[in-house]
């Protein structure tokens, strides 16, 4: 019998497998996806949010524990667990040498991402390069890897893990197990159910796009919940951003994001504005716009800019709709021309332009307009005009299994002696809502490593027990 079974193939699963193997356990990793699609959402990531008290290789200045914690507290609106959050934060300060030892390379921030030069360490080549490095290292260390092997259920003896059953019906027994199979964001039925029907009679989730993998169907999560595992989090909460409505249903990844919101206005299907586009720096606000758009009729919005904004934001992957006049733009976008022109006219006349500075919370704002635009408000008056349709893009869901700092799966408050969970399946312990760049990888790395170590220890204990009884 193998010692440690790891279910999943993303960052948390790989961290767990590597740690368990380094601790001397025999490890089998089951990845649901075929090899080409391995790595789950980790393949779409690009950095790790890292605490550091002084400049560290690619990280500039300092990002102390307290500041990191305050950032997390702010984005989650207090829906977090301080003990677990601080554990993640501290782990993020000393995990990178270990990551490097498994072939991960870091690099200074990408152009256009200088705002996170202090807080985030970028993976050279992005998350897929990291996933490749971890799989390669795992293979070299003797971790057994099987692709296209989704696990559908677990066999338990009380709180103790006994075996996993694959979709193909194979029973795989192990002394301990780490669950790191992701959230349920790829499961459109479950999203539909979680978001329900709104007051307009719409099923908002039907209009969501999934930014990452199609393999996070939440099968195992659902099974664990049914099996009585303690859960945490609201199923409608997740990391959700506004992305280009023309993005593919799955795996659109980073390039489908729309970064020009703070440089213009965003209107809904009725050609009305609905939120302060200039509330704060875009990197601090991008994670709320998915939900904002989800609340609009038809779950669609239109980011509108004029020529003045061109070249000031990351180039979008899809070409915007272009027009020389505002009525023409409205027409091309399928918006009511009169309403749209009125909305822009109201906005334009409310703009109080001071000294425009996109690198600071400048003094360009609106007066007497609801909702206000509090920064970077400049009239949209210079042709050509551009419009980008945006939809909610879900990255991952926060409903997960409740844990303490051992990552043990719990049943009615009792921790399992040999079943652990990491990654998106338990990220909701730290992230009750909201998101800040790179924290998903910090959570996955911290708890993946703990889960792997614990699972190896549990397997070793099981060995000793076995010897003791024979």
């Amino acid at each position: 019998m193998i010692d440690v079974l790891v279910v999943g193939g993303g960052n948390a699963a790989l961290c767990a497998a590597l740690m368990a193997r380094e601790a001397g356990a025999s490890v089998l990793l089951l990845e649901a996806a075929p090899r080409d699609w391995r790595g789950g959402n980790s393949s779409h990531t690009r950095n790790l949010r890292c605490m550091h008290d002084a400049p560290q290789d690619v990280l500039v200045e300092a990002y102390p524990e307290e500041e990191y914690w305050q950032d997390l507290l702010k984005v989650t609106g207090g829906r977090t667990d301080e003990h677990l959050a601080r554990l993640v934060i501290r782990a993020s300060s000393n995990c990178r040498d270990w990551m490097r030892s498994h072939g991960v390379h870091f690099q200074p921030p990408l152009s256009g991402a200088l705002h996170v030069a202090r807080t985030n360490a970028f993976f050279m080549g992005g998350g897929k390069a990291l996933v490749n490095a971890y799989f390669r290292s795992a293979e070299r260390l003797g971790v057994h890897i099987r692709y296209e092997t989704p696990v559908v259920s677990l066999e338990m003896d009380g709180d103790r893990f006994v075996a996993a059953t694959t979709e193909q019906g194979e029973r795989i027994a192990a002394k301990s197990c780490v669950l790191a199979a992701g959230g349920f964001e790829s499961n459109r039925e479950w999203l539909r159910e979680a978001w329900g029907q709104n007051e307009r009679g719409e099923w908002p989730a039907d209009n969501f796009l999934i930014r990452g993998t199609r393999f996070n169907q939440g099968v195992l999560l659902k099974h664990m919940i049914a099996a009585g595992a303690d859960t945490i989090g609201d199923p409608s909460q997740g990391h959700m951003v506004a992305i280009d409505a023309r993005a593919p249903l799955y795996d659109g990844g980073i390039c489908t994001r729309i970064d020009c919101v703070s440089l213009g206005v965003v209107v809904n299907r009725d050609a009305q504005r609905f939120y302060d586009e200039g509330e704060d720096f875009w990197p601090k606000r991008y994670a709320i716009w998915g939900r904002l758009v989800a609340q609009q009729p038809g779950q669609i919005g239109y980011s509108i800019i004029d020529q003045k904004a061109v070249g000031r934001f990351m180039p979008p992957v899809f070409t915007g709709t272009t027009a020389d006049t505002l009525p023409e733009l409205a027409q091309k976008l399928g918006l009511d021309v009169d309403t749209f022109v009125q909305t822009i006219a109201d906005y334009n006349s409310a703009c109080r332009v001071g000294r425009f500075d996109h690198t600071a919370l400048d003094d360009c704002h609106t007066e007497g307009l609801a909702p206000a635009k509090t920064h970077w408000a400049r009239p949209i008056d210079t042709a050509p005009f551009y419009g980008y349709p945006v939809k909610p893009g879900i990255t991952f869901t926060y409903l997960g299994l409740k844990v303490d700092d051992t990552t043990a799966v719990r049943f009615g408050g009792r921790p399992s002696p040999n079943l652990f969970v990491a990654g998106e399946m338990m990220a909701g312990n730290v992230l009750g809502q909201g998101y800040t760049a790179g924290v998903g990888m910090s959570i996955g790395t911290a708890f993946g490593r703990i889960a792997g170590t614990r699972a190896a220890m549990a397997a070793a204990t099981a060995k000793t027990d076995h010897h003791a009884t024979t």
Partner: protein
Amino acid sequence: MQQLESLTREAVSLAGGARVIPILTAKEAEVGRQMQICNSCRYCEGFCAVFPAMTRRMEFGKADIHFLANLCHNCGACLHACQYAPPHEFAVNVPKAMAEVRGQTYVDYAWPPALGKLYQRNGLTLSVALAAGLALFLILAVAMKGGLWNTGLGGNFYKLFPHNLLVSLFAPVFLFSAFALAMGVRRFWRDVTPATSGAPLNGPAAAEAADAVLRLKYLGGGHGEGCNNEDDAYSLSRRRCHHLTFYGFMLCFAATSVATLYHYVFGWVAPYELPSLPKLLGVVGGISLMIGTAGLWRLNRKRHPLHGDLAQKPMDLGFIALLFLTSLSGLALWLGRGTPALAVLLCLHLGAVMALFATLPYGKFAHGIFRTASLLRHAIEKRKPNPVGLGAD
């Protein structure tokens, strides 16, 4: 995704509509399409020069695409790291798209233009056949004079082919090759310069580009662990084999140059024996070239099928084969100089060298010339303020 039409339109708008913008070929439009995806992702910025150069652009015209295609070293790192690589529907494969345009630029910039088509016909079979044919021709010529199996040469091949005859055979071929390549790269430089800041070459830029060429910096993967070959593992094999090939070739070239000086300046006539300088350079260079090309051949055969343009493999292998045959026959000639096989070996060597030089301007050798030009333009351009200035926001 950007279609050809909109790309062309944007290129026209970029130029203010004043200049006539050349319509992109399908291969160029494909690079443009992929660059628009890459430019909104940028995860690969740390690997090489292509992506930092890309971020200085919002749109990709013909000259930008030609520049980037020749800047790409086909290291493969970005393909294996790409979240949008096949089977993703975006089907991003930068090494392949770049290689296909690169192949096209060799043809487009060939001088004289009519000979550009030779790029498509310079495969392995042709290269080896040309070398064999030339060797056979020389063998027959010698045989007709009855000197093919002669023990009385005493290692002196000028008795077979007088020095002046050799010079009159090789000098025109060599000079033509050098001239043709220079004409091609001159036109490339002129076309690419306006798209790469328009600034003239300067010392620091030249030094940086020279460093990148001589160290093959961009086969290092950005982290120094090398590039990809058959899979996602990084390896320094290709860089090392290329170094052995390049420096081996340069040593052989130096051997010939020194020998020429000996002949004309000092009147010291070949053959030269160890430890003379031409012989030392030639032997070391020849061995290095042999090992390097054998390694490159092996790596080329094992290469991941998604890397680069498969249609150019015969050209790659043809060039590798000619370099290998040149070094092999050269070393054989040296070792067999005292035997009756001298004449045959000499004919084989001269055939290989002649074929190598004749195909030089219309084969894989061109990659070094055009890539160096692109690296120079990149080093010049990066010293200018970024026209896009996204990082500031």
